[in-house]
């Protein structure tokens, strides 16, 4: 509303300036119904014009200057105030208690948001660490299962190693010879092996008479083929030591061929017996 006033101001004075020139005839009729202001003008139109003109002429310069200065100040202040209000500094005109209330509200909101952020952060951390922990645990478990599987012979394995063929044309190689070979290979770092088509595990037994040997109850015939995974060099050296496996089988009339290979496949599998008496202990 106040914004319209200055606009109306410049407009009205034009009418006002025109007005005094010929208001004398009109004023009385128009102002007759109006109570106070009209009466003096209506009573004496020429007289009304007289004092006004006199007053204008007689207006002393000091009063004119004061009026000018005051109105100039008003216009200035008006424009400045409109500008200030228009710049959107809404808080600048607010009173202290309002500002304090607004500040309180903002503080409370900030606190709430901060708490929320902390909450979410810790939840994120929990989830991330859970994720990482379970993933690591899963990977570790899988690795261990694979290692155990290779040791127990429940999974196929491949890697560097050697293929050892034991020929026994005279049928004189004994259980002890084959068992020695297995022990020696294990001692030399064999990780897993198979004899012919039988995987050698922790409970593997070699039984029978020379010429009718059985590995884990499965009959094997000469030539016996050992497929062993481990360091080929170490294994070959362990077999060839004086008084070792190769020597002893040679003394029984057999012969041993050892072929080192960068990729030996051990793919015979063993069935794991479910332990009947033993159960996992509590201690880690």
């Amino acid at each position, binding site marked *: *509303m*106040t914004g319209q*006033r*200055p606009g109306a*101001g*410049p407009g*009205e*004075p034009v*009418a*006002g*300036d025109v*007005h005094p020139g010929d208001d004398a005839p*009109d*004023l009385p009729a*128009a*102002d007759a119904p*109006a109570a106070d*202001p009209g009466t*003096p*003008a209506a009573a004496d139109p020429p007289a*009304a014009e007289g*004092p*006004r003109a006199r*007053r204008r002429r007689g*207006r*002393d310069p000091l*009063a*004119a200057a*004061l*009026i*000018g*200065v*005051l*109105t*100039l*100040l*008003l*216009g*200035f*202040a*008006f*424009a*400045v*105030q409109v*500008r*200030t*209000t228009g710049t959107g500094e809404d808080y*600048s*005109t607010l*009173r202290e*208690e*309002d500002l304090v209330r607004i500040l309180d509200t903002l503080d409370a909101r900030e606190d709430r948001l901060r708490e929320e952020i902390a909450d979410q952060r810790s939840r994120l951390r929990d989830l991330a660490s859970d994720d990482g922990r379970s993933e690591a645990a899963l990977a570790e478990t899988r690795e261990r299962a694979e290692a155990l599987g290779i040791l127990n012979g429940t999974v196929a394995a491949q890697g560097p190693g050697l293929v050892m063929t034991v020929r026994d044309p005279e049928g004189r190689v004994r259980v002890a010879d084959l068992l020695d070979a297995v022990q020696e290979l294990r001692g030399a770092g064999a990780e897993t092996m198979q004899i012919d088509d039988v995987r050698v595990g922790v409970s593997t037994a070699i039984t029978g008479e020379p010429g009718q040997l059985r590995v884990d109850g499965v009959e094997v015939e000469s030539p016996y083929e050992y497929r062993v995974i481990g360091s080929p060099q170490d294994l070959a050296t362990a077999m060839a030591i004086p008084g070792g496996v190769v020597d002893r089988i040679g003394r029984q009339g057999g012969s041993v061929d050892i072929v080192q290979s960068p990729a030996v496949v051990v793919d015979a599998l063993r069935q794991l017996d479910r332990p009947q008496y033993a159960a996992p202990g509590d201690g880690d």
Partner: protein
Amino acid sequence: MIPILGLALGIVLGLVLEPTVPLWLQPYLPIAVVAALDAVFGGFRARLDGIFDAKVFVISFVSNVVVAALVVFLGDQLGVGAQLSTAVVVVLGIRIFGNAAAIRRHVFRA
């Protein structure tokens, strides 16, 4: 003519210079402007009524502004500044409306 020129020049100066209102003046400036507007409307009405007096105008202008600012200042000191400034604006608004009505009767004869 002088008041109109003064007003116009003041508005132009205010728009061109774009001064920053000092902080201590900020609560009082709007009230002072409204009070001065009341004085100007009163003066304009008086001039249309043919009873304009420069001395009365100057004194009423100054006293309006000072009293309005003083009332708001006192209100601020008493902790009811917001309510008192509303009261001042309401009273001055009513007076401005009254003066505007009288001016309208002169200008439009209605």
